[in-house]
């Protein structure tokens, strides 16, 4: 199934993200894997449902859509020992950060900060991902950042439990 294939790649990308985030390599490389892992996890989840493969493969805006859907998942409510209302409120707080992760994809970065390609800002000043300090690292250090990381880890680990 497409869903299983996307999940396997998401798990592998996530391992690389954690490995790189803890390394001395420039943070852009870890953030690139964070964006890719979360996008593939989101697509794996969407593909396990009725969403069409063509729709899923053509978008980078999968993470926020996935979180909105998963916030109503009964399996996840059980895994996190939360009520329907609690889980929805919990996930709602994470959406702005998820949107920031989505925007790391160069196509969504609108010529701004992204972990893959240099950009010009302001005019005449060229920014290089490998020397740039990304705001998202500070956001991840917030409690909501930690909650998003834990949520993603749980979904990666218990993915099939969510579809029972």
């Amino acid at each position, binding site marked *: 199934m497409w869903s299983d294939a996307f999940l396997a790649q998401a798990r592998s990308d996530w391992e690389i993200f954690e490995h790189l*985030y*803890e390394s001395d390599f420039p943070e852009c490389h870890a953030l690139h894997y964070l964006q890719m892992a979360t996008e593939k996890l989101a697509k794996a989840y969407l593909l396990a449902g009725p969403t069409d493969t063509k729709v899923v493969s053509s978008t980078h805006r999968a993470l926020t859509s996935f979180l909105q859907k998963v916030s109503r998942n009964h399996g996840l409510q059980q895994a996190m*020992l939360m009520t329907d209302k609690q889980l929805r409120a*919990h996930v709602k707080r994470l959406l702005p950060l998820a949107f920031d992760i989505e925007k790391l994809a160069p196509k969504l970065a609108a010529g701004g900060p992204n972990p893959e390609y240099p950009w010009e800002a302001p005019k005449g000043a060229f920014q290089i991902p490998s020397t740039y*300090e990304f705001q998202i690292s500070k956001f991840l*250090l917030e409690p909501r950042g930690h909650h998003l990381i834990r949520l993603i880890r749980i979904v990666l680990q218990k993915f099939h439990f969510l579809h029972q």
Partner: protein
Amino acid sequence: MSTQPIEEIVQRLTRWHFEIEEGIEQIIWFKNGGKNEIRLLEVNRDTFPEDKILVFYHRPTSEYPVPVRLADITPEEWEKVKKGLIPLPAGWSLDEAEIFERNKVLKTLKSNS
């Protein structure tokens, strides 16, 4: 390596977390991370229980120039940690820990402003 005293960085970080997250009741600083790493456990009534402590590594930033290993648990899980029912991560010890209480930290902040 940071030239800022680690105590100062920990104080700023814990204050910041208390201010932006209402559910955090206590933050435990495990000092056996030395001066090269900050180890924090946050007791947060708005987090979800897993009956284990899952730590995530955070890179140094210009504002917090020391690596941070952070975990959060519910108040019920914290009780289990104190009773030894939930193990601490390897190398973390309550013998060398300092506990920051929400009310005290925020009160100090108000009286200083």
